[in-house]
Every structure is written in structure tokens, then in C-alpha cells.
């Protein structure tokens, strides 16, 4: 323990800020305040249940999604801020608040539906553009973690267009960006978003109708691609590594009937303990000004039940060796994948937690994108890199899984740079994908420096810098480097014509 702390202090690749976070995490992990059962401890030791670095004594919800609209209307007594009168004050107020929004990363994972927040303050367009560009640059340089996520849409706005224009110029990793896309979003606005994504790997597209159906109109996309209620968020995210759990099963039926139910029940118990600690012991909801000023409400929180490695789980259970028999290629493998997710959904829905009021007392399923140390474990329900089928087959294969995951699921596609000549091509794919049941889709051009690793953005040039032992401003660069080394991110299939 002591030597771990000293090695953090002496690490030359971490910035001062990154060391501070690592030291805080190390301190928290000296505690053992949760009454974790032997069975859960064993699952954790085996790497089957994983709390994704949330810490042993959670002192804030993992993902916090403040009601920024309310903040813009009322200002903040605690921060001594009055409601803004112009674009500069609006940007300034938001930047001040961001500094005080906690999360598992210590930095905000959601910074608001920026277009609708800023639209009322736009008078002179060029002045607004300057303000917005500086505001976005400020975010990138001070929120040094690319799990920070902004939203725009679904309606077109001047602010939305200015944000897209600025992102095309800046090409920064932060903030992550999603456009809520609905049947009402006009093509010209959507195409501007596509053109932006082809130079800056963002925005991603969220199926607005689907999210509204699951979470109501007051939803946000936070962190990687997590659908969460505004004014609340998620207390915790723990994940079940199906790729490893499968090894405990003798056959698919044994897995579905015994192995999976036990793991789901133990993981739910562990999540309950974490949530109880936040609400009953940590004092967060009794002390935070975000709660006192109505920007957060504990009744608008849920909790995310994560899963990862479905493809490897299915391939193991079926003993699939050749590609034609594997997940993503064989009808039998895909059908087993769907049965597993349906079963998991049924098991998770049976469990109740009285604090998850935003989701009727239940946890929401989340297709987790993996962590840097995962070796040969594919994100959520994704087809492994190297096994990707043709894009039309890929979209049709993955769509049936999306309805089970209101708190996040999605695929990432890399397109040959020539599609920049035909952005309508991508918009057609998005429209078709959403009508087929896809919830969320991300893409980037193969010649882009900024790329989406699994859910977050990193510059390839920053990865190279870190690889040479130099510091990188964003802590997510280290995660990106790990994912590149362990998950073949750079080998993701580039979609050429067809």
C-alpha cells in the first residue's frame, strides 16, 4: 500500500492533477466499509464482478447529471452567481459550475444540452461563435477527462450549428458530444453533424424517440453513451464480465439457469450495498449545494447494471472456433446471445432497490465498453474487432440488443475518408439503423487523429506521446493506450465502399 502511494508520487507520466486523483483513490481504498459477502469477494477476485474503479467507500454518486437549465434560470446562491444576461456571462456561469460537479472521475461527466442552454443568449452570431469556441476550448483544457459529455438537438438551433462549426475547427477530445436525433431533426442540421463527425469523431447520434420512450423527455447522454435522467444520474455502475463467467458453465442451459442467475443476484446485492452507503452514510445528499439548490434530486437517480463480453461468452458456450460459427456470423450464436440478454434483463428486472426511483425501483442495463486492462473481452454486446461482418449485416445483427439497454449501448464504425464526399450516405445508415432499433451509433473517418476508442475520444498523437513516456493532459489517454494495446482498437475494420 505505502509503496503504491510512493510510486504514484514519483510517477513522471502523471500530471499533478492526475496524481491528486490517484492519491485520493488510494486513500479511499484503504477503507473496508461495505459489508461485502464472501461470494461477492470471490466473484471480484475472479474478475467476474468489477466495480470499475468506483472505490471502496463511495462518497458521491458515480454519474451526476445536474439540471443546468434550472441553474441558468436561477443562478446559484452558494456560488454567488446571478442568472446570465449575455453569452459571455452564460459561458462563465457554466464554467464555474462545472468546477463543482463531482463524479467518479472527479470531473463532470455531463455538461448540459449546450445548444438549448446557450441559444437564448445569442444575438450577434460571430460574437457568439467566439464565445462558444473559447468555452469549448476551456472545457478541453480544464476538464481533462474525455468522459465529459455534452448534448445537442434534436431541434436545430443557431447555437447547435455554432457548436458543430467550432468542433470542426478545434478537433479536441473534450467534450464528448451527442446529437439527439429524431424524425423531426431536419436533414441539413443532421448532415452538418455528420460532416463534423467525419473530421472530429463527434457527435455520436442518439435515437431520441427510443430514449424518450424509455427515460422520458428529460434524459441526457453522459460519460461514454449513458442514457440518464436529468437532475439525477446513476448512483453506481458495476459490471458483470460474461466472458469470464461463461467458464463456470458446463453448457448454455447450465449458464442460463444456474450460473447467470447466481451472478446477477450477487452483483445486485453488491450494488445495493454501494447505493445504501451513498444515501445512508456518505452524507452527500444532505450536504451538496447541488441538492440544496434543486439541481439534483435523489429521486431522479437510477443505477446501472453493466455487462461486457457477450461475444466471448457465446463463443465459449458454443465452443465456436471458426468464424462462421462465432457471434456476429452464426444464427445460432446470435440467437444464444439474445437469449442471454433476455434472461439477464428478466433477472435484473426482478430485483428491486428502493432508492432507484427514476427507474421504478429497478436497475437499468448498460452495455459497458470495457476498461483498458481487458484482454480479449469485447465491449457490451459488440462483435469483436477482427470479426466484424459487412456493415449492413453488422447493423442488423446488433439492433435487436439495443432495446434492453436504456442506460447505454452502441457501436463504433470507422469509415474510409472518401465518405466525406457523400455525408448523405451516413445519414441514410443512421436513419435505417434507428428504424431497425439501434439506440446509438458513433463513427469517425479513418484519416482522423481524434478517434473513438470504445466510448470516449482520444487523439492518436497523444497516445504516441504517452507511449514515449511523456505526460498527456487528459487522463483518458492512458486508458486509450491500454485499449490500443489490449483490444486492437487500431485494427477496427475500416468501412470502404460497401
Amino acid at each position, binding site marked *: 500500500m505505502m509503496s503504491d502511494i510512493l510510486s504514484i508520487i514519483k510517477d513522471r507520466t502523471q500530471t499533478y492533477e492526475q496524481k491528486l486523483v490517484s492519491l485520493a483513490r488510494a486513500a479511499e481504498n484503504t477503507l473496508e466499509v461495505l459489508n461485502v459477502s464472501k461470494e461477492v469477494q470471490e466473484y471480484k477476485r475472479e474478475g467476474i464482478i468489477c466495480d470499475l474503479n468506483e472505490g471502496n467507500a463511495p462518497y458521491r454518486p458515480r454519474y451526476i447529471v445536474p439540471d443546468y437549465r434550472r441553474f441558468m434560470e436561477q443562478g446559484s446562491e452558494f456560488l454567488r452567481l446571478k442568472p446570465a444576461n449575455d453569452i459571455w456571462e452564460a459561458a462563465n456561469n457554466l464554467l464555474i459550475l462545472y468546477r463543482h460537479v463531482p463524479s467518479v472521475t472527479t470531473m463532470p461527466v455531463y455538461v448540459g444540452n449546450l445548444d438549448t442552454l446557450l441559444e437564448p443568449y445569442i444575438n450577434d452570431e460571430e460574437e457568439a461563435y467566439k464565445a462558444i469556441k473559447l468555452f469549448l476550448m476551456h472545457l478541453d483544457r480544464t476538464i481533462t477527462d474525455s468522459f465529459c459529455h455534452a448534448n445537442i438537438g434534436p431541434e436545430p438551433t443557431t447555437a447547435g450549428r455554432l457548436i458543430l462549426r467550432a468542433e470542426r475547427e478545434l478537433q479536441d477530445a473534450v467534450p464528448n458530444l451527442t446529437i439527439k436525433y429524431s424524425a423531426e431533426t431536419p436533414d441539413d442540421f443532421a448532415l452538418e453533424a455528420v460532416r463534423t463527425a467525419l473530421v472530429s469523431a463527434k457527435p455520436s447520434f442518439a435515437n431520441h424517440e427510443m430514449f424518450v420512450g424509455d427515460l422520458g423527455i428529460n434524459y441526457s447522454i453522459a460519460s461514454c453513451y449513458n442514457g440518464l435522467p436529468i437532475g439525477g444520474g446513476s448512483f453506481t455502475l458495476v459490471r458483470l464480465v460474461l466472458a469470464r463467467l461463461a467458464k463456470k458453465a458446463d453448457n448454455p442451459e447450465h449458464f442460463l439457469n444456474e450460473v447467470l442467475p447466481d451472478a446477477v443476484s450477487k452483483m445486485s446485492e453488491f450494488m445495493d450495498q454501494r447505493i445504501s452507503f451513498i444515501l445512508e452514510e456518505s452524507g452527500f445528499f444532505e450536504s451538496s449545494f447541488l441538492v440544496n439548490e434543486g439541481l439534483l434530486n435523489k429521486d431522479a437517480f437510477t443505477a446501472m447494471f453493466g455487462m461486457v463480453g457477450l461475444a466471448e461468452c457465446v463463443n465459449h458456450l458454443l465452443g465456436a472456433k471458426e468464424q462462421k460459427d462465432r457471434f456476429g456470423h452464426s444464427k445460432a450464436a446470435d440467437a444464444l446471445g439474445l437469449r442471454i440478454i433476455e434472461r439477464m434483463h428478466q433477472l435484473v428486472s426482478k430485483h428491486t432497490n428502493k432508492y432507484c426511483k427514476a427507474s421504478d425501483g429497478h436497475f437499468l442495463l448498460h452495455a459497458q465498453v470495457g476498461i483498458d486492462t481487458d484482454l480479449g473481452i469485447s465491449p457490451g454486446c459488440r462483435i469483436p474487432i477482427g470479426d466484424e461482418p*459487412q456493415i*449492413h449485416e453488422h447493423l442488423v445483427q446488433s439492433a435487436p440488443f439495443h432495446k434492453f439497454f436504456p442506460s447505454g449501448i452502441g457501436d463504433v464504425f470507422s469509415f474510409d475518408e*472518401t465518405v466525406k464526399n*457523400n455525408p448523405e450516405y451516413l*445519414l441514410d445508415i443512421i436513419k435505417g439503423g434507428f428504424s*431497425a432499433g439501434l439506440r446509438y451509433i458513433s463513427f469517425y473517418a479513418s484519416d482522423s487523429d481524434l478517434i473513438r476508442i470504445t466510448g470516449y475520444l482520444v487523439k492518436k498523437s497523444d497516445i504516441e506521446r504517452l507511449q514515449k513516456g511523456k505526460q498527456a493532459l487528459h487522463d483518458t489517454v492512458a486508458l486509450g493506450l491500454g485499449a490500443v494495446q489490449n483490444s486492437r482498437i487500431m485494427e477496427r475494420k475500416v468501412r470502404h465502399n*460497401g
Partner: protein
Amino acid sequence: MAKALVNKILPFSSVDGPGNRIAIFLQGCNYRCLYCHNPETISRCTHCGLCISACPSSSLDNINGKVTWNSSSCISCDACLAACRNKSSPKAVLMTVGDVMKTVDKVRPFISGITVSGGECTLQKEFLAELFYEVHKSKLTAFIDTNGSIDFSKEDMLVNSMDMVMLDIKSFDEEEHRMLTGMSNDLVLKNVEYLAGLGKLYEIRTVIVPGLLDNHRNVCEISAMISKLNPEIKYKLIKFRPLGVFGDMKKVPMPSNELMEDLKKSAEEKGCRNVIVV
């Protein structure tokens, strides 16, 4: 129901017209372009059987004197195409309009329309008219990609059934066009005027080949023609790529990015507003 010999179907294409399109390549062409990059689409199979022994997955067979292809065991290695001495493919399939529509229906929510290419698709024009009638019922658009060698002004049924055309002007010069393709460009240029007049000309393409063609003259003449007819018509300048080509053409270098940008600038100076380099 009309039938056509289909070389292959690409479910998603980003380069065959606006948006995402299913691209259908018909077998058979009346041109013999020196730089043809898919020569296996030129001729119809003569069932000589040379490809059968070349196939490593035993997916080709001689059944009653006809070479027959088993798509389920095929590993798409294209050894059959390499073995063919007839610029053909044993994998071309005779399909009805209904067969093609079944394939279209599978990807319908994802596409803006269909584009029929080749080979030279207008050699099977009766099939096209019937197919496009069905396609329009599905609220999709129907484009064709042609070398412009049939006289569109005499093909009312085809012209009325299609939405737009993408047409190659491989050379503006008659002699050069003959040298390159074996055919005159007379009808090609006539078709350009006719189709532009109807508002059915979506795009004109020219392949740029250093050393073989007078690229600069071609681009200047063609772009002058386009800008006179309608400067919004897309003009696509395509880099020659030595992929899939025959013989000496393998040794011809790709044009430099500088040359392509230079040609693009010339086309814009002539008044074209929509010039793309690929």
C-alpha cells in the same frame, strides 16, 4: 418478368450516387477500355470450364455443359476470375426483377435508392425499365451508371422510368476515345446534352490517366460543356488506380494529388461548381 445477368450486388455503396445506395452490377459491356478495373464484367461466360480446376473450394462444377457456381461454399478468393481468359465470371447469376427486389427489400430502410451499373447496364434496358417501376413503388430512387453508348433520345421507356444518370466521358477527343474504348464518343456527347436538357444528368466522370490521355484538354473541354449545360451537375475526377487492370496498364502510375488538384482548379475556372476528386 424480365431477367438480367447480374455480376454482383453491393448492398451499401457510398460512391454510386447520392446517399447510401444498393449497387447492382450487370454482366456484359460493349466497351473495351484499356484501364478497365473490373474486366470480369465484360463478357458472358462461354462455359469453357477453365475456372473449375482453378477453384480451391470446389465451388464450381460442370452441370450439363454449363459452369455452375455454388455460392455457399465459395470463399470469394477470385481465383476463377484470374483463370478466365474470356473477361467473364462464372459467378454471374440470371435474376428476375423479383429476385433483385428481394435483395433490395433487405436493405430498404438503410438506402436512398438503387444504382444499376456494370458492365454496361443499358445493354439490358428492358430489365431496367421494369426494375425501376418496382423500385419507385418502394419510394426509392433509380439511378443508372452508363458509358452513354445507347441513344437515350430513342429510349423513352428507359428514360421515363429512371430518375438520374451518371455518365462517363472517358475522353472528349474522338480519336482518343476510340483508342481508349474501341468506340466513338459521338453518342456519349449527344446523350450528355439530351439528358442535361431533361434535368436527368446527375454526374459526369472522367478517369485521369497520366501518360495515356490528354487529361488537361479533356477536363477543360468537358467542364466547359458542363458549365454551359448546368454548372451544378457534379463533375467527378477519378484517379486511375492500377488495381484489377490488365497487362501494361499495371505499370501506369497513379496521378499525383497535385495533378488532380490542378485539374480540379481548371474545371472550376471553366465554371463547374461541383467538382470532386476521388
